[in-house]
Every structure is written in C-alpha cells, then in structure tokens.
C-alpha cells in the first residue's frame, strides 16, 4: 500500500499466525486456542479479537457486514467498518446479510440463517465459561481437558434452587461436539440454538484474553441443562400470553429490543435491523 500500511493492517506473519490458530480451533471444536493478540489501534475490549480474525481472513473480493447488537449503524459497528474499509482497499461492505461473505458481529447472531459460504466472526470479552467457578487458568485448562464441568452444573443447580429456573441471560455455557464447554460470547439465549448445526463457520475471537475458538459448520452445540429442566429461550410474551410483535415490521418471530417511545409507551422492535428492513420491504413490495 502506498502509505506503507499492509493490506488489512496486520503484517503477513500476524495474519498467518491467526489463520493457523483458526485451523487448530476448527480441528478441536470449542477448544480455546491461545494466540499472540496484536496491539490494534483501538482499546482492547472494543472488539479487537473479532477485528483481528476479520483482518486475517478478509481478501480483496470479500463483502463484509459488521453488526453491533443486531444493528449496522451503532457506534462499534460503524467504527470497525470504517477502519476495515480504510485498511483493506478493494473490499465491499454491505448491510444485507445475503450479500456478505464475512460477517463480524457483537452480541447477536443474525436472525436469518447463514449459508455455507459465509463466515461469522463474534467478538468475545470473556472466552472461558469456567471463569465463574475457578479463578486459576491453569486449573481451568485441566478442567477443560478432562471435561470436568460439574462445578458449572452446580451453578445451574443452585440457580434452580433459588429462582426455580436457570437465570443466565447471555453467555450461556454451551457444550460443543460433546466435549468442550464454551462461552458463546454475550449473545442472548435466543441465539444459542443457532450455533447448533450451523451452515456457516462460526469463529470467536477474544483480543484481550488472547484466545480464538470455533464452532465448525454442522457441529453439535448443546446448551447446558438438566434432563428435566430443559434449556429455553426468551419467549417475548406479554401478560396475556401473546407474542409481542415488532412495531416496525410486525414480525412475530424475531428477537425484540424494548424501547420507551416519546409518549412514554413501551414499544418493541426487531434487534436485527437488516432483518427488520427486509421484512418491511417484503410487506410493501
């Protein structure tokens, strides 16, 4: 590049290392592969893990979509998109899920299902689901290796004892391919079933914690639960037991965000803005 910055900001050695870690992560589904997270021109915790994955994978003929909590227009998404556009000349960006080949997301998995030729990159703040029960990383590694997750399950047990249900709202511990349990990043419970048997490769990057892990396509992903207390997703029913609808597109299937409008009324709207727009276009022709 003319200004002396390499394509996709990272030098080729850094990209190669990340790609190698990605391959390892795909080979051992759910295993957290350590990598030397590079310094990025933004603070750790702003999606540097996801960004490094995107930069290592992107090529000039890729079309990129960046989402933050379902929206293409929120600050984190806009800034990351601008940065990638600036450092990767020749790539296309889009807000349409169907047009994208590479999707970087924070806290949501898109509403519509992904295709086999797409890759979803999720930004992860805390990669290890065991961190709530074991502070030492050394011991956590042994626990992961031996699939010793009883203390995590005790956490669920205690939840049911205290509140009659499992109260984890996001970062729901999920067992991948029957062995490793991952923290699937702060996606809501609603999105967890989308990890299971996904068409697309799903990659997780934690920049501050220097870990990469993956849920390969068509892989088992089971949220932790008891045989008689099954995992359940948010149901969005009102006090009358009716499913709330999106006020913009009228969808009854989507994950909803709650707002207080100018009249002080509670209103609900799709969290995935791209999906919402597509539904509106369908309705109005």
């Amino acid at each position, binding site marked *: 590049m003319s200004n002396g910055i390499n394509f996709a900001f990272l030098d080729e050695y850094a990209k190669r290392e990340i790609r190698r870690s990605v391959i390892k992560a795909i080979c051992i589904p759910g295993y957290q592969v350590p990598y030397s997270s590079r310094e990025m021109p933004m603070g750790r915790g702003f999606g540097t893990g996801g960004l490094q994955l995107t930069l290592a994978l992107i090529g000039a003929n890729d079309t990129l979509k960046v989402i933050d909590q379902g929206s293409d227009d929120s600050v984190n998404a806009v800034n990351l998109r601008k940065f990638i556009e600036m450092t990767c000349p020749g790539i296309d960006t889009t807000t349409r899920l169907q047009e994208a080949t590479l999707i970087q997301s924070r806290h949501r998995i898109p509403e519509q299902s992904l295709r086999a030729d797409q890759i979803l990159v999720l930004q992860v703040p805390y990669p290890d689901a065991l961190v709530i029960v074991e502070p030492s990383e050394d011991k956590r590694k042994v626990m992961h290796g*031996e699939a010793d997750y009883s203390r995590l399950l*005790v956490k669920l047990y205690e939840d049911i004892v205290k509140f009659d249900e499992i109260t984890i709202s996001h970062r729901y511990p999920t067992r991948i391919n029957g062995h490793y349990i991952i923290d699937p990043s702060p996606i809501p419970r609603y999105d967890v079933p989308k990890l299971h048997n996904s068409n697309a490769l799903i990659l997780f990057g934690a920049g501050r914690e220097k870990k990469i892990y993956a849920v390969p396509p068509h892989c088992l992903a089971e949220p932790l639960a008891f045989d008689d207390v099954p995992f359940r997703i948010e149901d969005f029913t009102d006090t009358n037991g009716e499913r709330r609808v999106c006020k913009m597109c009228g969808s009854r299937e989507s994950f909803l965000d709650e707002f207080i409008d100018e009249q002080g009324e509670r209103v609900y709207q799709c969290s995935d803005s791209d999906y919402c727009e597509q539904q509106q276009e369908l309705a109005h022709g």
Partner: protein
Amino acid sequence: MDKILEVKGLSQVYGPGCDLCFTSTGPEFESNICQHCGSIVALHDLSFDLYKGEILGIMGESGSGKSTAVKCLYFDQMPYSGSALFFDDTEQKHLFELNPAQRRSLRNHRFGMVYQNPNLGLNFDISAGGNIAERLLMSQVMNYSEIRERARELLARTEVLTERMDELPKNFSGGMQQRVQIAKALATRPPLLFLDEVTTGLDLSVQAKILDLILEIQSELNTAMIVVTHDLGVIRLLAGRTLVMKHGRVIERGLTDQILEDPQHAYTQQLVASAL
C-alpha cells in the same frame, strides 16, 4: 472375603531425597528427617491389604505419616514410590499408574473422603445440597429432581435437617458440617471410604453420633474404610484391624483388640498406657 485394596511399599518423601533417606530415618533414629539431604521421609514401606466391608484403623501421633498415606491413596498427592492395586467390580487398577482423568474418575465415583477440616471436603460457597449435587453431577446424574431427591435422602440419612439443605454449610455447626461431608462422600455409594480424623475437634456426644453413623453405614452399604486417627477410642470402636505408625513406619499391626490389650512395641505400650 474379597480384597478391595492392596498397598505395597508405599513411601513419600518431601524434599530432594537421596539413597540414604530410608536407611537413616525411622523409629530407631527417633526422626523422619534424613541427616544427609534434609528431606522429610513422611512415609516408608507401608503395605497392607483391605477387604470389602472392612474397617482398617491407622493410629499414630501427629507427624507419623498416617494422613500422608490416605492422601496418597486418594490422589491428593502422588507418592515417592510404591504401588497400590484397587479391585474394582470387574477389573483391577494400579492406582499410581493411572492418568489424571482416570484418577479423577476413580476419586469421584469409587472413593469417598472425609477430612478432619470440613473446609477441605466442602465448598462453602454453595449450599449443602449443592455440595452433594456436585458429586452426583460428576458421575453424570443429569436429572434435577433425581439429584434433589438423592441429596435429601443422603442428608436425612446422616441426620442433617433436610429443611436446611439449601443453606450454606458455613452457617452450620462443626458436627453438622462433618455430617454434610459424610453425606457428600457417600453420594456415589463408593465401595471405599477414607476417614481422616473425622471426629477430632467435635464434642463427645457429637463424636459418638458420628461414629455410630459410620458403623451403620458400614453395615448397611458394606463400605470398606480406612480410618486415620490418634484417638484410641475411635480405633477401639470402629476398626477391626489396626496399624500403629511412628516416624513414617508401621511399628505394629494386628487385630485391634490384640494391640490394645497386649501391645508389643514400646511406643504402642506407652500410647495405650497413657490413654488409660
């Protein structure tokens, strides 16, 4: 009778260790510190057999190596040398040749441990029921109501009020904590139980109840136990056979009655005399 455990030449050394460690320590030297390299020989050449449903007592003063023996067998630490063969239902397992995952599985499913200090055996941040649930979850019991039911049964069996099963063990009295610990150890119905000074520090009436409980469990479940204690009363009540240890060595072994009525070794004589 069926053998359940066969221990041969179990030794434990803390420190660098040298060739002279074992020949320069022991009761005849009145020390377990090797004068050549400064290592502590906590345990040397411990051998015994244990049969199904039997209670074996290990008696000795503090520092005699009795707890070390149990900790090695429960994999809390790995021994310096020696072997132990565990006779599981169908197969035999050499304890110290297993990999960490196999050791953990044996520890979780086939062994139970009750420590002197409930701090070591219980997780004080989760409820009494949760502590028992942890052991059940380790052995792949994944049904919530079944776990609740089993935990309630076990706590009732060990005479902990089941109304308090969702309370944190730190709110319990020492005797009750010890009972929760026993309930936890029994959760998977292990064929082998290690009891390390279980009644030390409890008042006499509670001691008696816990010892009663242990005897009932033994006759009910036919659990083999190794009871480590310095209390002659506990040995007299529980153990059929006894080992007496000093400076890491077994100095006398035999039927408990025989040892208490007719001690042969000078140290045992002293021990028995001082208790009376």
